[in-house]
Each structure stands twice: as C-alpha cells, then as structure tokens.
C-alpha cells in the first residue's frame, strides 16, 4: 500500500487517528511518492542475485529476532556467505582497537578461539586489529563468525582484509552482514551505526582493548542499552589501549574478566535469550494463520473450529492438514486439534 496507494489515500490513512499511522503526514507522504517512483524491486532483486546476496526484511521469519528487538532496528539486512541465517545461535561480540598491543592481540585471538570452540558465534566488524583477530581466532578454532560491515556486503573494508573476507565466504562457518545494499561505500557515520547491529546479533560483548575515545566504546554503549552482558579485559593503568576497558570496569558498566571460563559461566545465566535467536520456522498466511491463531494448547474440536471461524469444512480440513504437515499442530483422537 505504501508503494501503490495514491497520495490522497495515504494522507487519509494518516489523518485517521484511530489507526496509529499519523506519521503519514503531508511531508512524508510527498517524500514517499517521489522516492517510490525511483526504485524498482525487480531491478534491485536482480542486482542482489548477481551480487550473490540475500535480503531479509524485518518481518521475514529468518530475520534474527534479537536484532528486530533493538532500538532503530534495520529495516532489512543483506547477507552474503554460506552460514545459514536460520542457524544463528548464542553469540558474542568481540570488539576493540584497530591498533592493539601484543597483549590485546593475543587475548583477542585466544579468547575468540576458545569462545567459538565452546559454540558461541563470534561477531565483529572486520576492522583491522581486534576485530580481525577475533574473526581469525574463531575460524582457526573451527568455530563460526559473523562480520558486520558498515558498507555493502561486497564492499571490503579495509581492502587489506581481502583474505579474511574471502575466507568468511568460503565455508559455512562465516557470514557477512550489512544493512546496506551491495555496492554501498562505507561513510564515516555508518561505522557507529553499524555497531548496533554487531551488538544486536549478540548475547554479550567483550571489549579487549580500546583507547579512551575508541569507537568500540560506542559498541559497549549499545550493548549496555540492549541489556547485553558486557565484559572487559583489564590492562595496565599506564596502557593507552586499556583506558577504555579499565574505565568501563571502574564505572561498573562492564564485568572484569580474565578468562573465557568466566565469560561462559556468566553467559549461562542469560541463556534464556538464546530463544530469541530461534527463527520462526514457518510464516503463516490466510486461513492457516486464522486456524493456528484460534487453536490453543488445549484440544479444540473440529466442529468448534468451523463455528468459531465460520469457514467451510473443506477449507478447515485443508488448513489443518497443512498445519499438521508443518508440525505446528497435532491431531488427536475424536477429531480434536491442538498446537504441537
């Protein structure tokens, strides 16, 4: 409708107070009308195919639910790589400076490896330094890792990370994610914004090394706002690259950790959030949705359903069969049905 309805109809929709669509004001409807003339979904889709990129809008059943819950969630995400988006699970963001010390480098790679070996997906931004080391640590440990890029999924940034990028695409243990269409060049303002996706895909964040004004602290802020567990590696008070984590620890904004065991132990507490990553296996529409919505966990008789839904026996039978095939409902003796 936003793409097909007339200007007048959209304005009328926005003006009807009971619909809660009052954002459809004169200015935005005008903008919508002008912009929709310039885009063509089929053309965009063809380009995605050429770029070997998938697109998941926020209402797609495979769009990570944890990401849809964050403030200012991306309208859609583009992915490239072989890791099935339906297989996402517990994840930890590992972030830090682009210029780590040998101490930070060793910790990033070792911790990423151990956490990935434990089954966590390591999420980072493919930047130089801690990000890259975290990705490599996960890969070399045989674990899984996701790189969230600031530009399009085909825009390798920094270009010196070509080897890592290619490796992420080569096997099912890697995935590239972006909120921008392929070909989009990263601009400075996109990097902080990208960090919300890194944390949005994760259950916890580990800050390894970061200067007092590092962009990684923005990730830590997002993590804190998104109620993620935030961990920080302490460092010398004389070390410039430990100023960020030391400060977070001092302010009680992060939990001091010195081993992956501590992280895993704390994350056990928040494993309830793992359910957020479970994709909805089937998206229902039409009659099947109506029938499924009507069914409860208690058995309901076929006749009750026909009466409540006011649909024909044939339509109901058809919908029930499809739901049963999808494993969403159970058929019980006596023509009763309930959610599986």
């Amino acid at each position, binding site marked *: 409708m*936003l*793409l097909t309805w007339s200007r007048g109809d959209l304005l009328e929709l926005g003006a009807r107070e009971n619909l809660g669509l009052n954002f459809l004001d004169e200015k935005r409807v005008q903008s*919508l009308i*002008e912009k929709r003339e310039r885009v063509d979904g089929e053309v965009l889709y063809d380009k995605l195919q050429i770029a070997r990129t998938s697109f998941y809008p*926020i209402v*797609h*059943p495979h769009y990570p639910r944890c990401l849809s819950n964050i403030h200012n969630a991306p*309208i859609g995400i583009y992915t490239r790589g072989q890791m099935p988006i339906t297989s996402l699970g517990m994840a930890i963001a590992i972030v830090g400076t682009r210029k780590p010390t040998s101490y930070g480098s060793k910790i990033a790679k070792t911790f990423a490896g151990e956490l990935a070996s434990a089954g966590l997906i390591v999420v980072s931004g493919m930047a130089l330094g801690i990000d890259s080391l975290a990705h490599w640590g996960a890969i070399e440990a045989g674990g899984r890792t996701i790189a969230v890029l600031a530009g399009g999924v085909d825009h390798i940034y920094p270009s010196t990370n070509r080897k890592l990028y290619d490796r992420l695409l080569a096997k099912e243990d890697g995935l590239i994610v972006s909120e921008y269409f392929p070909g989009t060049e990263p601009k400075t303002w996109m990097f902080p914004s990208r960090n919300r996706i890194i944390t949005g895909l994760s259950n916890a964040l580990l800050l390894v090394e970061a200067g007092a004004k590092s962009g990684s602290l923005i990730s830590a802020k997002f993590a804190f706002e998104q109620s993620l567990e935030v961990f920080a590696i302490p460092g010398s008070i004389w070390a410039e690259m430990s100023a960020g984590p030391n400060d977070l620890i001092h302010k009680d904004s992060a939990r001091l950790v010195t081993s992956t065991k501590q992280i895993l132990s704390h994350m056990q507490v928040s494993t309830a959030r793992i359910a957020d990553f479970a994709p909805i296996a089937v998206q229902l529409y039409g009659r099947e949705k109506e029938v499924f919505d009507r069914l409860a966990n208690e058995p309901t008789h076929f006749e009750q359903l026909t009466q409540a839904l006011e649909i024909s026996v044939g339509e109901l039978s*058809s919908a029930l069969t499809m739901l*049963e095939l999808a494993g969403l409902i159970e058929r019980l003796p006596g023509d009763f049905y309930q959610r599986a």
Partner: protein
Amino acid sequence: MTDSPIPDRDDQTEQDRRERLERAFQARSASVELPEVFPHQELLYWLEIANMGVAGIRADELMRVYERYGSI
C-alpha cells in the same frame, strides 16, 4: 440414516488428509520446491522500501503498517 452419495464428513476429511499427505510426500521425494517462506512480491516491496531512504519513515512505523495490513 439413508445411504447418501456424499461421504460422511469424517471419511472425507480423512481421505482428503491422506491425499494431501501423499501429495506432500511425493513433492518432497521429487525434490519439488517447498512453498516459499516469504512471498516474493512482499520481498520486493520491502526491498524497495529499504532502498528509498524510507522517506523519513522509521522501521517501527513500517511495522505498524505491516501489523495492521499484513503488508506494506
């Protein structure tokens, strides 16, 4: 009860169910594509919306439209 050319509803339901199960089984056996998870046309709509700079409309506002109309 008199003989009726119309099968009893339970029988028909059962028969219908068996036929559908059989068709579904054959479809899977023949590697026929399963129904799409997300309608293609809907995907194109969202693709367009995502690439319009969204005309100043936020994702949560789009969601409101979607929740109300099941489409954007």
